[in-house]
């Protein structure tokens, strides 16, 4: 019962934050609200017992990305231009996409269903055998770093590639920036 109330409150706050985000025009407040949104999402993950995910969401979503958004605002502008074109077509696209997504969830197993595909495949094996095989109390760590070690290697490679991409696009390497300044002046 208590959990239902918490979920309802958190979800309605999430929706309210999203609606407020859409209506705002000052980018600074939007960025701060986006941080609030991430924190609310992190709390939802905690109620789902996904503490590792909540941890990441709070640190990345509310922490680092807020700073990066602020950095972007400092480089560009602090308000957004009011849109002049009619927004009926985008609204229709959003409604249709949302309807399709909700329709898609109808096929998904119920929350906490013991017969869900995620539960009957390898999850049972990980939960029962990881204590014997890996001997690490946090099953998330043993799955992430050992059973699924190759996937995680790929994940780290993706993060590395993303970092290199950001550096190549917006970073000013030593020397390069000065040359460009000369061209400008």
């Amino acid at each position, binding site marked *: 019962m208590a959990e239902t109330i918490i979920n309802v409150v958190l979800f309605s706050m999430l929706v309210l934050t999203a609606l407020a985000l859409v209506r705002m025009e000052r980018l*600074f407040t939007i960025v701060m609200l986006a941080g609030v949104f991430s924190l609310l999402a992190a709390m939802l993950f905690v109620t789902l017992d996904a*503490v*590792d995910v*909540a*941890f*990441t969401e709070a*640190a*990345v979503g509310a*922490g*680092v990305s807020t*700073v*990066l958004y602020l*950095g*972007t*605002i*400092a*480089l*560009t*502008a*602090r308000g957004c231009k009011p849109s002049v074109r009619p927004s009926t077509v985008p609204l229709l696209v959003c409604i249709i996409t949302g309807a399709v997504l909700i329709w898609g969830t109808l096929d998904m197993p119920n929350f906490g269903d013991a017969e869900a595909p995620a539960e009957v495949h390898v999850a049972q094996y990980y939960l029962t055998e990881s204590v*014997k*095989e*890996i*001997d*690490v*109390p*946090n099953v*998330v*760590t*043993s799955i*992430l*770093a*050992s059973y699924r*070690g*190759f996937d*995680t*290697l790929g994940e*780290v*490679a993706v*993060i*590395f590639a*993303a*970092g*290199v991409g*950001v*550096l190549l696009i*917006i*970073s*000013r390497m030593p020397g390069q920036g000065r040359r460009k300044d000369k061209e400008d002046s």
Partner: protein
Amino acid sequence: MRHHLILRVITKILVGPIILYGLYVQFHGDFSPGGGFQAGVIIAVAFTLYGIVFGLRAVYAVLPPWVVHRLMALGLLIYAGVGILNMLSGYEFLNYGAFAPNHPSHGQHLGILWVETGVGITVTGVMIAVFYAFAGRPPRMGDDDW
């Protein structure tokens, strides 16, 4: 933000504990929530905070960009290196049993420790590098325009 005395003092107090907490999350990840991904972000946050409050020049003096760029690659190399080390001792790629053939779970512990260290180093490097990339460009807005 040179003129904000309170922010400067609080930052000086906080940076140490944040890094310490990041190391705790990193190396206690076997027992409690956390691991390389979260720890990397937390440690990067310490440097980001320092950079925001004291300016880029101060944080460059602690951690120059060229070090950060090498950290990004170093973590990935550690991770892949663990796998290759396993292959050299005749096991499969990333089969940590190779570290302690007589006691498989000890090998797993060692393997997870090194792999998570690699993850943490890469994530720290990428997060700080992205922050440097954004903050390193001359801003168009002054401090008072916000």
